[in-house]
């Protein structure tokens, strides 16, 4: 049999250490929970597999988030399909995006630059590729901020459907793996023609040249970037060398097709 005293001293020391850790953690978290009153709200929506953001002035962004340095922001985070996790490792921003719930956290960015936004909760096929960019920009004066915000809203006012020589349709339901996606799958055009990419699906899609997300030459030949549901984009083939190119959707990489330029 051992000596109980030594063990009591030891257990006491371990417990004291744990109480200290717990109290210190509680004290820090208590401050972090308190959102400043002048914080601007940004809505964050996670979807398989992209992020969309809505600023308090109504500006919307996809896979890019522009914020100002030294301004407190309150993020309202949710999801429209499965669980995601809104994570900016450089600023220790981490919160689950859960459908049917709005989670909030706040942060203030103290360094300018471009940072990685990623998803940290397993959400299916392209979980690893659910990335966005955070741009922390210099703080503008209030008056300047209003004029700067104005042009960003302007293009949305022009309701003009573009036209092209050939149409590539992204079919309804294409976001679900296994459904028909691009129509036609193999498109032939003559060099110089323009292609109208018409997204009739409800989800955002892209037409991005390359083999898939791990292809380092992705999007170098042509890339529509995100086309929202119901919207369209134009690909101009004037600068594309004749040949056959594979393309895919950078949001849903299992959507693939080929483009033949003659």
């Amino acid at each position: 049999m051992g000596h109980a005293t030594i063990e009591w001293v030891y257990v006491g020391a371990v417990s004291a250490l744990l109480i200290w850790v717990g109290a210190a953690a509680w004290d820090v978290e208590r401050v972090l929970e308190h959102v400043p009153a002048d914080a601007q709200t940004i809505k964050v929506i996670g979807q398989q597999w992209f992020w969309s953001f809505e600023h308090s002035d109504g500006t919307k962004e996809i896979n890019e988030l522009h914020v100002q340095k030294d301004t407190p922001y309150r993020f309202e985070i949710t999801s429209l399909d499965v669980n995601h996790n809104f994570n900016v490792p450089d600023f220790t921003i981490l919160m689950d995006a859960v459908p049917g719930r709005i989670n909030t956290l706040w942060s203030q960015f103290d360094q300018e630059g471009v940072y990685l936004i990623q998803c940290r909760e397993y959400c299916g096929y392209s979980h690893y590729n659910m990335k966005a960019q955070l741009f922390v920009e210099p703080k503008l004066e209030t008056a300047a901020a209003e004029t700067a915000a104005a042009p960003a809203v302007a293009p949305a006012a022009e309701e003009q459907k573009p036209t092209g020589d050939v149409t590539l349709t992204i079919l309804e339901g294409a976001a679900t793996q296994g459904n028909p996606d691009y129509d036609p799958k193999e498109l032939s055009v003559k060099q110089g023609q323009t292609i109208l990419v018409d997204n009739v699906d409800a989800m955002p899609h892209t037409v991005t040249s390359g083999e898939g997300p791990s292809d380092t030459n992705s999007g170098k030949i042509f890339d529509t970037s995100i086309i929202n549901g119901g919207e369209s984009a134009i690909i101009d083939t004037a600068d594309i060398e004749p040949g056959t190119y594979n393309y895919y959707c950078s949001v849903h990489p299992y959507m693939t097709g080929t483009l033949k330029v003659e």
Partner: protein
Amino acid sequence: MVLEVKKPRPLWEIIFSTHHTDIGLLYIIFSVTFLMMGGALALAIRAELFLPGQQIIPDPATFHRFFTVHGTTMLFLWAIPFAAGIGNYLIPILVRYKDMAWPKLNAVAFWMLPVGAGMVWLGFADLGWTAYPPYSIIRAPGPAAELWIFGLKILGLSSILGSINFVVTILRCKHPDLPIMKMSLFAWSILAISFMQLVAIPTFAAALIMTYTDRLGISGFFNPALGGDPIAYQHLFWFTFHPEVYIFLLPGVGMLYEMIPKFSRKPIYSYQSGVIAFMLLSTIGFASWAHHMLAVGMSFTEKTVFMVGTLAAVPASAMHVFNWIATMWGGRIKFAAPMLFGIGAILLFFASGAGGVVNTALPLDFITHDSYWVVGHFHLILMGTVSLTFTGFLYYMFPLITGRMYNEKLAKIHFVAAFTGIIVVFMTQHLLGLYGMPRRYFDYVPLEEWIMMNQIASTGAWVVGASYLLMIYNLLRSSAKGVFANMRDPFNIGEIYYDYRRREPIH
């Protein structure tokens, strides 16, 4: 009866036996087989992550299936069945009864395992081993997900039946001359985890059925489109699986209490402290489940409660560590392979426990949550502590099972390779997490630090894999050609080894 391989018998006689040592042997063979299969998946995952970009696994969906089946296999087809196997072997010997209380039920509980295992492996689901809804409900492809759900139901039922058998054997069939406070601490650990399983598993069993009916579309418990709450699933899941962490751990703790005093040639420092720590862990273990969910958007009060609940379980674990060190202190330690594995496991238990305190300290959790830190942390406890102890105990039991000795030199090489490999893989993964790499990523941003750390981790993983192949070679060869063991004292410690006829507890 105890010597399984020494007296060759037809295979069917072992397979259809209801004797506890035969079933124990089947459990051990089954679990070690799945350890190797799950390990092969892990090595494929590490090969994929050796470089950014797609390497050997064709697409992300396959990668997700690999880590799902790897996790499910290691937890439910290696850790739990191995503990049940050793329990089957030793519990009747330690409580001095002829067999388990219900031998036929015991055989049924074992034979449910291959059925459940077959379903998990044939389905090869991509849910992640946690199967969080709404993904598991609205997006996961069937029939893989259904096979996973029913495979886990069968494995859970098998654990429940096994637990009932252990509880009854220990409490009702114990020899009247053996007071419970003189019973081996390994028997205490099996008693503790059997009670924990009886309390914990039904919650997950219910969640599995709810997930299944949600998938059928006839209910919406966890489906927000039908008014359900996906977080409710996480509560049900972790109410089972945080205690489950202790269910994986405590048999290992019990095995260390068997080995450490014998190889230190000293009695256990404080038997009562060991019993009290088991009781504390198996109750407080139920008070900390939501520390896995600190980032789901809980209130500050909830987060604080679960942080306190988690920290409260640490002193009991620390009591075990103290007890082992105090037992070894001043002992004439014999550094045979089982003891080396035991000491390695204690060192890594300390490291992973300290990492756990970091995870639960609220602001720090938001750095480590769902990153490679967490992967490193739970592998350090499951591979570094639980599996190293189990491996050591497998060597320790080898003479009892086969009547022969394993090759000591190869076993020591196995220990050195496995121990260093584990440190290289999982300590590196802790750092990788601090650099921001999330878990369950098929491909990663080609940052120089991430590539380097992934390569170090992969190399370490292959060392661990090779060391376990060496163990399989050693055990297979020695069971056929090893020298006959001195069954009174195979390790030359000067103490009586297991004698199921007249074993007295050592105190």
